[in-house]
């Protein structure tokens, strides 16, 4: 293929200013939030569905693989371009097209930032519930591709429970609608299949989401515990009381130290674990259940319990949690986050075994996670510049995943498989399982030209160093 010609054609579709192809500039498109790297040949910023469709049709004809890019906060390498591929990114398609307050839904473009949607609809007394800790930065396109979760998904469910439908461009450029604005779908729930497909089925160009009313009262509890085991007991105790908090998050000692180094989140230096619990509902409910939660925290051995109801104070309690992953940068330049899920009752023993892996490999592991739904996030800390470091991390990470699977859990709670966990898929799925999944993908993308090389094991070792773009040329 004549790449110069291809670039010209791309420019013809979206405008010269909306194609990035200089090799210097492409350096900032080789990463996402994960440890993976890979340089695209070009990045395209379309302005409309039509442009997306033409870009994809053109690439399909030219045999160039295409990967969508939201804002690159993904933690499984999902947005990393496959060799020879281009990225289609959505900073120009970032409009909230419609908010229907009566039917409580919104129609948005894929580049809309999660928090911006929530902030916007709060003016109407509504909210967008799924709140990944990256919500300030991540896009809704990325959210549906990864079926993102978040602290409040414990009570409200993950992204898939909030997406009503989407407009999708398929690999040949065809534009189709999946799902509907009505709440019931007739026939196969293709909307549900698309959510979480990690960009391998097609590119979403419009997304309809469900909105919820803002609850009357919200109360946040912060419990300080001497160690993780005690905090795990507290989690079980709260749940055994029949309470379903809106959020239930845990932060361990290493993470606490990292956070406190950057901001004073109000955690004592010697705290072994911190639990964050949030209740939402009617004022009476929150008052009544709140007392129970507080009692449960004290009973199980909390050394301190703090509560807040005013927005600003609650925000303060959340500061440490929201910034936790970033804060790890103060301890080590890189983290490899394992997104394993385990049954809630297994939390304490699994964390114990994770600590064994940490000792065995001599790799510090920080834990900050959605305790309420058993979604662990052990972060293996390392420095990618040290020779062989990444290989050891991947090995240790695999061991951690094996522990989760052995405990009756699975590979990923919310970040997707992407590049990072594809070789671990056989830990939970048989050849037949995966072959069935490929059949589903083929129904959408028979030529596998949308985000190829992700999700399914292909024996290619996970070697995330950058490959130089083959066609990079000076502008």
């Amino acid at each position, binding site marked *: 293929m004549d790449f110069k010609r291809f670039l010209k054609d791309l420019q013809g579709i979206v405008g010269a200013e909306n194609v990035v192809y200089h090799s210097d500039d492409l*350096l900032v498109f080789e990463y996402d939030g994960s440890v993976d790297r890979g340089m695209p040949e070009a990045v395209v910023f379309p302005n409309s569905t039509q442009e997306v469709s033409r870009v994809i049709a053109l690439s399909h004809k030219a045999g160039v693989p295409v990967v969508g890019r939201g804002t690159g906060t993904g933690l499984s390498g999902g947005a990393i371009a496959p060799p020879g591929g281009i990225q289609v990114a959505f900073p120009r398609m970032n409009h909230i097209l419609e908010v229907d307050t009566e039917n409580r839904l919104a129609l948005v473009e894929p580049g809309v930032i999660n928090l911006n949607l929530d902030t916007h609809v709060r003016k109407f007394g509504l909210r967008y519930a799924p709140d990944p800790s990256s919500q300030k930065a991540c896009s809704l396109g990325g959210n549906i591709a990864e079926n993102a979760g978040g602290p409040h998904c414990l009570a409200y469910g993950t992204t898939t429970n909030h997406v009503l439908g989407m407009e999708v461009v398929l690999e040949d450029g065809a534009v189709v609608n999946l799902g509907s604005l009505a709440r019931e779908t007739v026939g196969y729930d293709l909307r549900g299949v698309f959510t979480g497909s990690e960009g391998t089925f097609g590119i979403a160009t419009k997304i309809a989401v469900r909105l919820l009313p803002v609850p009357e009262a919200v109360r946040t509890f912060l419990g300080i515990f001497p160690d993780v085991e005690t905090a795990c007991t507290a989690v079980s105790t709260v749940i055994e009381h029949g309470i379903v908090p809106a959020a239930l998050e845990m932060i361990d000692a290493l993470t606490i130290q990292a956070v406190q180094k950057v901001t004073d989140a109000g955690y004592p230096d010697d705290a072994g674990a911190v639990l964050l619990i949030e209740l939402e509902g009617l004022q009476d409910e929150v008052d009544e259940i709140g007392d129970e939660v507080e009692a449960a925290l004290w009973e199980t051995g909390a050394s301190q319990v703090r509560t807040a109801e005013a927005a600003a104070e609650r925000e303060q309690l959340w500061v440490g949690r929201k910034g936790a*992953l970033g804060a790890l940068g103060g301890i080590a330049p890189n983290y490899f986050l394992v997104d394993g899920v385990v049954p809630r009752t297994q939390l304490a023993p699994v964390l114990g075994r994770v600590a064994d892996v940490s000792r065995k490999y001599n790799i510090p592991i920080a834990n900050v996670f959605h305790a309420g739904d058993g979604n662990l996030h052990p972060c293996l800390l390392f420095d990618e510049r040290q020779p062989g470091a990444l290989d050891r991390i991947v090995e240790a990470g695999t061991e951690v995943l094996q522990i989760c699977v052995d405990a009756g859990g699975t590979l990923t709670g919310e970040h997707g498989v992407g590049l990072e966990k594809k070789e671990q898929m056989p830990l939970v799925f048989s050849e037949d399982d995966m072959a069935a999944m490929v059949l589903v993908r083929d129904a959408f993308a028979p030529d596998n030209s949308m985000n190829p090389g992700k999700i399914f094991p292909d024996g290619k070792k996970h070697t995330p160093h950058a490959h130089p773009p083959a066609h990079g040329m000076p502008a």
Partner: protein
Amino acid sequence: MVQPFAGFTGRDAPAESDLYRCVHCGLCLSSCPTYVETALEMESPRGRLALMKAVNEGRVEITPRIVSHWEACLQCRACEAVCPSGVPYGRIMERTRSQVRAAGLQSRELKRFSRFFLNSALPNPRRLRMGANLIRLYQRLGIQKLVRLSHLLYLLPGGIGKLESQLPPLSKRFFGPSDAVHPAQGAKKMTVALLSGCVMPLMQGPTMEATVRVLTRNGCDVMVPQGQGCCGALNTHAGDLENARAMARTNIDSLMGAGVERIITSSAGCGSSMKEYAELLKDDPEHRNKAIRFSGMTQDVTEFLVGLPFQVPTATVNRRITFQDPCHLAHAQRITAAPRTILNSIPGVELVEMENSSLCCGGAGIYSSVQPALSQRLLKRKMDSITATDTQEVITANPGCMLQVEMGFKSQGTNGRVRHVVDILDEAYGLE
């Protein structure tokens, strides 16, 4: 790893321990004015840091294209304030610029600007003052040639070289250092030294005078010692660390005189720079310890007044105002409450918050001169937020912001006015 290129070199190379704190999480993107404006990853904190890492690792050399992304950075440090990883972006960028400068790879605009202004005028208060006298003469007499001669147009925001008619008027009276001590009114609480600075005493003399009155009124003996000069912030930002160090030493030696308990400035940019002298001079055997003490003694005037605490004015100033957070106050010094506390204490003042008050106005020191296009776009955005508050008066706490927003009002053709927090506090005291 193969390292085809040399990477950063020398003692002013960005520290790896700073650079590799960035875990590319992206949480800074939405706070970065240039990313908000362009939506391009190259013009984001994460992108700029990635380019630095690539250079550091020897994967690429410093190219004009890479430099252009670094130079488009306002050094507003909004990213630093929100970064959960504590990436010290400000000093990383200062050191990166020093590398670019050492390699002679700065853009033409920046080079031209540096030659006269950073290398000659700022480190040399007398020369600066002479130039300003010329400009004032020009403004009185309209002798355009003089201005071109003096090159002082570069002092002014917004590519104003082309907009001579919009030249902001210099103060009728210049402010400046002297041997005099301005005595405390009433019981004396403290002796403070005030930084006179470079541009502020020439452009905002009355604000400097108001600062002295407000401080004396609150029980401070105020000295404005001779021998001091520009704080060096603009040099530091441009990566001219050598001149900046010399300027820092001068100020340490002149301002930290006998009996001085605090060093006060009413310029947020200068305060931020002086609080970082300790970092700037950390390898200077003679000045290292003094610099640590100096930085510890430095306070922004609003921070100082609230800490005193200041006397709440009793007279009423009936006015609706809005407040613009200077980047180097809000992000670099993390001071956002103190100015608001002062404003809210003045009877009759109604503070209407604007949207995105701490998003840079595009002034950013010399940025408005060397990056006029992006600067103007940010100014437009700022003026829209200001207009939406329906107030006629913008209060801020930094000379650069004052000039930039004044420019904004001028180009809008509206007659809003811009003042410093101490101006309105002084006004209130004056009415008592």
